[in-house]
């Protein structure tokens, strides 16, 4: 099957600022694709190009196999978009705004709307100017989730939601995916990414630095090992692939590359292990690694 989103070497500049620099992004049908990167990396810009709101300077952008700039209207009937910073018409009520979005996209399904309003605990009779940030975001989420679409484009959709609503959001996305919807999710909330996403693309300074399943990305990062043995384990610290070794009383802590793991385990086993914990990299470590590692090498004025 053709990918739902297929971006190759996409470049976009604002004056002298190069927001996207040969970006690649592929989202397959039915998957939840995490789109991650530090602030100013170009996530929102890429999404706005995908929506035909911005024009690509160079590169190829395909959405459902079509050109998002030229065929915007046809393609938009098949997707729903939730921005991170939702601005609504202050004179309308939340309910009116939801109906408006749904009907501009296709049609309103009152049952689905009522159901979502209840789950998100949103009062639709209030004027949108009186909503808090989280409630404005709920309006956009309900409007998106109430429509019958093939693709959800979500740009930090939960940045204003409380933890309870965050859970509701995750449930809703899971249900949508179960019914065959594809999701592109840009987010800074790692727990959400870990729970929802099948694959992720990490971008920095407008370029994709990693793309793959979370498991694959974990392979690229080191696990942490804490071990105590009857014999002195210090010799292990010198093995290839072992880093950051520190003594902690009788125990030794270190990090180890994925490839070196079998050899290290064999060596430890020979030393009479008393206790051993191996912690796979947390997402946080993963991101610190990918966001931060190459920063000094990044060209000045790149990532911000």
């Amino acid at each position: 099957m053709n990918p739902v989103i297929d971006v190759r070497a996409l470049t976009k500049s604002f004056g002298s600022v190069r927001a996207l620099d040969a970006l690649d992004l592929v989202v397959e049908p039915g998957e939840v694709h995490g789109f991650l990167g530090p602030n100013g990396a170009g996530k929102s810009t890429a999404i706005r190009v995908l929506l035909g709101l911005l024009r690509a300077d160079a590169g190829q952008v395909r959405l459902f196999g079509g050109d998002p700039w030229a065929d915007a209207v046809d393609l938009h009937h098949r997707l729903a978009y939730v921005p991170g910073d939702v601005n609504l018409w202050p004179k309308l009520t939340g309910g009116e705004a939801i109906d408006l979005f749904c009907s501009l996209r296709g049609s309103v399904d009152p049952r689905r709307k009522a159901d979502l309003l209840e789950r998100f605990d949103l009062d639709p009779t209030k004027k949108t100017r009186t909503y808090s940030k989280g409630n404005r975001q709920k309006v956009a989420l309900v409007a998106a989730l109430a429509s019958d679409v093939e693709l959800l484009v979500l740009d930090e959709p939960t940045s204003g939601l409380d933890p309870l609503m965050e859970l509701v959001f995750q449930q809703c996305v899971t249900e949508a995916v179960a019914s065959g919807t594809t999701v592109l999710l840009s987010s800074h909330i790692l727990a959400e990414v870990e729970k929802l996403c099948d694959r992720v693309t990490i971008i920095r300074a407008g370029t994709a630095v990693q793309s793959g399943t979370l498991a694959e990305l974990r392979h690229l990062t080191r696990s942490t090992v804490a071990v105590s043995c009857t014999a002195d384990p210090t010799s292990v610290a010198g093995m290839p692939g072992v880093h950051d070794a520190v003594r902690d009383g009788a125990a030794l802590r270190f990090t180890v590359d994925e490839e070196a793991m079998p050899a290290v385990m064999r060596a430890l086993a020979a030393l009479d292990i008393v206790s051993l914990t191996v912690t796979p990299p947390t997402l946080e470590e993963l991101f610190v690694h990918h966001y931060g590692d190459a920063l000094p090498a990044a060209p000045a004025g790149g990532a911000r």
Partner: protein
Amino acid sequence: MTAATATAPRPAPPRAPGHADEAPFTGTVRLARHVLRRDRVRIPVWALSISGLIGYFSAVLPIAYPDPAALQARAAIMKDPSGAFMTGPGYGLDDYTFGRLLANEMVGMLAVATALMSIFLVVRHTRAEEETGRAELVRAGVVGRHAPLTAALLDVLVANVVVTAAFAAVMVASDLDAPDSLAVSVAIGVVGLVFGAVAAVTAQLAEHSRSASGMAGAALGLAYVLRGVGDARQLGGSALSWASPIGWAQQTRAFVDLRWWPLLLCVALAVALTALAYVLAGRRDVGAGLVPARAGRADARPGLLGVAGLSARMERGSVVGWAIGLVVFAVLTGSMGQGIVESFEDQPQLAEIFGGAGEGDILRGTLASFLGFFAMAVAVYVVIAVNRLRREEDEGRTAAVLATGVSRARWLGGSLLVTGAAATLLLAVSGLALGAGAGASVGDSSLAGQFALAALVYVPVVWCFMGLAVLALGARVAPGWVWLVLIASIIVGMYGPMMELPDAVLDAAPFGLVPLVPSEDPAALPLILMVGVAAALAGLAAAAFRRRDLTA
């Protein structure tokens, strides 16, 4: 710089109760300076617009009333209860002069203008600030409980002083007696203060800025009607006239037998209302109101569900506001009809200049040229309405709509449809009101319909300005250029004849291209050409808009 910086800013710890009471006015001066800075353009614009009204009337009145006899004819209309209802108590009608006319007929209207200014300013700096949550930030700093309200009231005081001074200066420059001019100016200023204080009270009551302005506006409307009914009952006003702050302002009898003390009533009321506002402010939380907000609809009406429906909903309020303003102006202007007719009767040589035309034709000719002024106002509306779309785009709402199944052309077209229709409506309403006012004064009921239709000859030229504004939007050129073209056209159209510009320039200026219907035959060619130009501008705009990035 790492990703591990996701901690939310902690809310400021709650202040100890009673803390703010120790120094409720702390920070007022700093806040007032900030507030005045925010209004550094707004206040002068109000002052110029309000004193500019005199400019308008001193340009129009000599045309309509070239001699005392003509003015006297106008005075007769003001003696009439309906005339008195619309204007004032009618002091000095026996020997009408420009000053007396101004004091009798315009103080009410001008007082409404300063009252609206004061209401908007107070609400803007109190309730509107709380609504956006900015007030919370301010109050969390070293700022006393009453500082924001006090700063807003100081702002309104300054605004009314500026308006009063500007107005007095223009009046004195127009050769009017200084003490009476000052009394009139102070009168409109103190009415402004009264309604500033009214708004300070309603801002405590209502939870939303619009309801706060609405409640204060309703009080203003009531004040105007009370004095209207009172003045209609009896020459010089009756008890009901004295029940209204606007009535007090008119009871100074400026240019007739000046007395200042009624203005003290305004000052006393303003002080009392201000005190009430402080008491109420002390009894509520930041952000909360004493009257809860009303709930709206949970589902949209079908009429809203479309680009045009949305646009109509956004424009509705401002179209109604413009319509009311234009109607008031047009009725007042039309009510000079009898005066125009009589001035020509007195000067048959003038009638000859107009080609020996009959009375009716002279009246129609003069009113037809006044129609142009209303068309200019509607052109201003159109440019403002199109510029609203810029804000829509900058605040990300346009992107949200375009991300649904709406094309850029449809978005632009739907919005233009509404603005174009609203402009047509405003023109027709202005013409209708001008004709109705004139018809009532000369006793010719056919004028209303005639002028409602005649006003429509200006539709093409107004649409041209809409096209220009939308082209600037499509190509994202600064809106200043559109204003420049519009203002130049207005100046040439209004003052061109006085500046003795060559006829070629006057005829080629946009508003000069329009035939003076109904006194002239509507020439089709220029109108068709203008519609063509408007369509071409809109087409270019759509093409340019399709080619560019959205700003947000």
